């Protein structure tokens, strides 16, 4: 193996939000940083649902000054879908907390910040392995070349093949993974704003639960971008394996052609079809590996993503974990080296931050989301109640009466109470 002469302080693998956040933070502090990315450009292998929470990312990247922001999400819509019926709840806020964008654009912007700060960004480099010597990660292997550094930050993404090849983590399990499939659909800007009732740079996040996933655990989403929508769904893979009756691409197709959605998308055209896995770990399984001698793991590779069922937070969790990995490197440097002992501060920093605090707080959420009634019985129940309250030509039932009728054949009282308690405890 050839040794490349130049030695970096830090090598970061993967120019997604986690990798760029780590590289940027360290480059600013004067560390010699190499950020390697296998894609043609940074961001060209990244996929997300559609929204980013601004503050955590802004904390890392200078208040997001100059970032490609499409729309600020001021409208949150959650819909329960069954058959041709849908009940929706909509919140119209006034704060600018999260925004929509294209992740490829955003990740490209982040990587440019790394370069501006003096970091070296190399694209079109697929890392073949981590170099492990005497239990310590000392660099990366690309073909038959070897690049060494004091520490490697692995932000390779959810498939984390490098960690598996190095024998540091077991094979990723379907139990801890969801599959996201998405289409970006172009619409005329004014048409989009009319359809969703948006003004200026306002945006909407729309989550749908119910038979949009054929009753499988998961959900569908629609985010409004500047002049397009991101439409897709996430299915918990553990169940999908056993029960997907038709090809997964058909689910997105059915979603786009759904009688309740097609009017929104009629004039659109698909600009891109994409798919990506989503980590769905449960605390305290999470994370499998955060650090070892000479190595830190950030973002999806460490399983750091929050899925509440009604909201997802991935990009901000990834960027912030990358930022904390960088701070851990700084501290370990002050303490005398990149040993496992010194890098353990990374875990402490994560524990103190919203990242692990949130994942611990919502540790019951993944199990709650496995409850099939959330995707079948309850959307049906709610729609049946609404139907009675609004579609009774003469005699409107009382709410409890409507509930009793809607409940029959769908779900027992006891189950309902139990589910309600579990929901309250989980989210």
């Amino acid at each position: 193996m050839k040794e490349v002469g130049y030695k970096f302080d830090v090598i970061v693998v993967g120019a997604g939000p986690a990798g760029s956040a780590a590289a940027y933070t360290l480059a600013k502090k004067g560390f010699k940083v190499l950020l390697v990315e296998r894609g043609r450009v940074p961001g060209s292998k990244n996929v997300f649902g559609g929204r980013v929470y601004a503050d955590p990312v802004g904390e890392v990247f200078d208040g997001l000054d100059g970032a490609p922001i499409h729309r600020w999400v001021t409208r949150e819509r959650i819909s329960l879908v069954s058959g041709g019926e849908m009940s929706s709840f909509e919140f119209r806020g006034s704060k600018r907390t999260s925004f929509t964008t294209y992740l490829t654009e955003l990740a490209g912007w982040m990587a440019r910040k790394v370069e501006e700060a003096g970091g070296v960004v190399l694209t079109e480099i697929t890392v073949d392995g981590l170099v492990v010597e005497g239990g310590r990660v000392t660099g990366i292997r690309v073909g038959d070349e070897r690049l060494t550094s004091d520490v490697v930050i692995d932000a390779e993404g959810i498939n984390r093949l490098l960690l598996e090849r190095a024998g540091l983590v077991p094979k990723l399990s379907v139990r801890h993974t969801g599959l996201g499939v998405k289409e970006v659909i172009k619409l005329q800007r004014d048409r989009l704003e009319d359809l969703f009732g948006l003004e200026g740079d306002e945006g909407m996040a729309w989550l749908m639960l119910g038979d949009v996933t054929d009753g499988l655990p998961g959900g569908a989403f629609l985010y409004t971008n500047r002049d397009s929508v991101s439409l897709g769904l996430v299915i918990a893979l553990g169940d999908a394996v056993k029960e997907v009756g038709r090809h997964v691409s058909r689910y997105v197709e059915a979603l786009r052609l759904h009688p309740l959605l097609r009017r929104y998308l009629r004039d659109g055209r698909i600009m891109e079809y994409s798919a990506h896995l989503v980590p769905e770990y449960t605390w305290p399984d999470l994370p499998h590996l955060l650090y070892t001698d000479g190595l830190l793991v950030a973002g999806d590779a460490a399983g750091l993503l929050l899925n509440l069922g009604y909201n997802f937070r991935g990009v901000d969790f990834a960027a912030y974990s990358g930022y904390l990995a960088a701070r851990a490197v700084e501290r370990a440097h002050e303490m005398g080296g990149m040993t496992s002992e010194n890098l353990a501060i990374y875990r402490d920093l994560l524990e103190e931050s919203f990242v692990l605090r949130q994942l611990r707080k919502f540790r019951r959420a993944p199990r709650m989301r496995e409850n099939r009634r959330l995707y079948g019985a309850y959307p049906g129940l709610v729609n049946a109640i609404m139907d009675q309250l609004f579609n009774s030509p003469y005699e409107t039932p009382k709410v409890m009466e409507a509930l009793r009728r809607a409940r029959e054949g769908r779900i027992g009282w006891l189950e309902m109470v139990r589910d309600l308690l579990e929901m309250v405890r989980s989210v």
Partner: protein
Amino acid sequence: MSKLFGLSIEDKLATTHFEVDEKPHIWIKEQEICRKCVNKPCQVGCPARLYRWNEETGEMLYNYEGCLECGTCLLICPHDNVHWSYPSGGMGVVYRFG
């Protein structure tokens, strides 16, 4: 420009940009194992529909060229019979929006 209705998976994949590598990054390790596989979940689970069972030849046909690089096939194969690695540098899917 693609129309929105009645789309096949090929129509959809045509909207996504790929730089096709000469050497595949996916392959089936043992066709014999696929022959014995009862459910063949790769057929429905791969979002690009790259795996197709050929009843006549008794072979699992696969095509790495339209791979969206999600990694689903690697996880859902019940017999760990899929070899999957990242394509070589710059190759494979090039998401323009992500």
